[in-house]
């Protein structure tokens, strides 16, 4: 009975989310030309995917380990800098496509490895001590930022070169949109589906979903939960680092770039309902679309993008008023 109720709540939230997107679309159509509407929607998806790449790992880790990893933004930044380092390390004359792919793979591995080290070395002694975790992850985030600042300087790096095939713009309904940002949307969507398949179809996914509820019982069934914790944590930071590297040709890299995204990622997780993967995925897109719409509206009427950040907070407040546990949260 309660389960059936939950399924209904899930469906309701799904319908609500769909209606909200339609509402945003209608608002856009009422205010802007079709070309602008298309660009705003795509830009919303692009931002949403970046939020998703940071928030996905955070939300799964929060569900399984009860740890809110406030250093996740630093891993995003680390991915971008790893990309630059790999671009620089490859011999001159390496085709740009090769550099780009090597940077994507290298940044992901760097993020995963750094995450594994962090979980084993720093986080393990602090399980069941939430306050210490907050201090540690926040402190580590600051430390990584400062190390990067010390090595690369405070100014940040100009965006790295993307493969020429992606360095174009295309025309959609009269609006112009960068091909590279479309590529980011595809990367995000692929990971969204990939992680979902991992959770639903694999043994690791079964263990993760079971561990979210009762990791002690998982352990009593003969599964080394510690190892699963490390693996999941590392997967989360790897995805964040991949996100950072994917964004590097567009945003460049600068100390603190992760922190900007981290705040939005936390809002995304709260809106989606803490520790619900589906919630995080859907909420990141909703937040991206909201932000893009608000940005364009305030550019049009006030000549500044001032509403962009405010809109996300207002959106969160509105969601929490209707659903105190978030869109897809439990209990």
């Amino acid at each position, binding site marked *: 009975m*309660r*389960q*059936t109720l939950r399924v209904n709540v899930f469906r309701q939230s799904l319908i609500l989310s769909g209606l909200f997107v339609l509402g945003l679309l209608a608002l856009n159509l009422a205010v802007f030309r079709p070309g602008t509407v298309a660009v705003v929607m795509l830009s919303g998806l692009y931002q949403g995917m970046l939020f998703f790449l940071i928030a996905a790992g955070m939300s799964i880790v929060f569900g399984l380990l009860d740890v809110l990893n406030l250093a996740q933004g630093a891993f995003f930044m680390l991915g971008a800098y790893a990309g630059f380092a790999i671009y620089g390390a490859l011999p001159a004359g390496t085709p740009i496509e090769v550099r780009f792919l090597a940077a994507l793979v290298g940044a992901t591995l760097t993020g995963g490895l750094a995450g594994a080290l962090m979980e084993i070395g720093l986080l393990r002694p602090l399980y069941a001590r939430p306050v210490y975790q907050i201090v540690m992850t926040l402190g580590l985030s600051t430390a990584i930022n400062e190390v990067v600042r010390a090595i690369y300087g405070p100014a940040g790096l100009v965006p790295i070169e993307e493969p020429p095939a992606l360095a174009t713009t295309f025309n959609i309904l009269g609006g112009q949109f960068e091909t590279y940002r479309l590529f980011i949307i595809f990367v995000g969507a692929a990971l969204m589906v990939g992680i979902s398949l991992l959770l639903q179809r694999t*043994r690791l996914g*079964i*263990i993760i*979903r*079971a561990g*979210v*509820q*009762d990791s*002690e*019982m*998982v*352990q*009593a*069934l*003969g*599964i*080394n*939960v510690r190892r699963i914790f490390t693996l999941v944590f590392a997967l989360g930071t790897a995805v964040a680092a991949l996100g950072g590297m994917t964004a590097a040709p567009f945003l460049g890299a600068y100390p603190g770039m992760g922190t900007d995204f981290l705040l939005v990622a936390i809002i995304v997780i709260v809106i989606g309902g803490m520790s619900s993967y589906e919630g995080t995925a859907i909420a990141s897109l909703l937040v991206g679309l909201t932000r893009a719409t608000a940005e364009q509206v305030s550019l049009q009427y006030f000549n500044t993008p001032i509403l962009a950040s405010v809109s996300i907070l207002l959106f969160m407040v509105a969601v929490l008023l209707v659903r105190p546990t978030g869109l897809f949260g439990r209990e």
Partner: protein
Amino acid sequence: MSAILEVQDIHTFIGQFHILEGVTVEVPDNSITALLGRNGAGKTTTLRSIMGLNPPARGAIRYRGRAISGRKPYDIAQLGIGYVPDYRAIFRQLTVEENLKIAERRPGDLAGKRQFIFEIFPDLEKLYQWPGGQLSGGQQQMLAIARALVADNNLLLIDEPSEGLAPVIIEAMMAAIRRLTAHVAVLLVEQNFRVASQLADRYVIIEDGKSVHSGLMTDLLASPALIQKYLSAA
């Protein structure tokens, strides 16, 4: 008759509380041993100590002659011990199939055991794709025991299987547990004395964290004074 599990004078602390103050239990092969005693005597903690979930501070636990105290719970489980906790611990978001699948220690464990499990618990076949959270209390109990059968376990620790179940369901569950003893030894915690006395071959009585009596169930049944002293509700 050799013992598959020997628990020798274990002492277990939870936080600062001295919960077990000397528990000794022997579980012979292919038999059912019941842990008896009043609420709060330390029966559940004894099972959790054996699983390594509340490791004992003193005393020895041997499984097939090997010392296992101090090992991690997953390590202990892998030796061939299945645990069915009193709260059943069914994963609500997982289907019945996934609840069983997660207990595999080698790929193919479930495929090999599925028919056997369906034979003992026919209900689970119909419910195979249902989420665990939608099962009734009795069905969840069946699933919890079935889950402990997926891997090649030789010893099951079953905590309060009859708790909260309707009498007719209890009968079915007792029949199922009885069938298992052809394959595994069972250490059973059971508050319902009628159930315990019908199922178990041997008993151990725990009072205030100490094991105070043990022997054959038939002897206990012949001794109303003992039952009165340690097990009556008063």
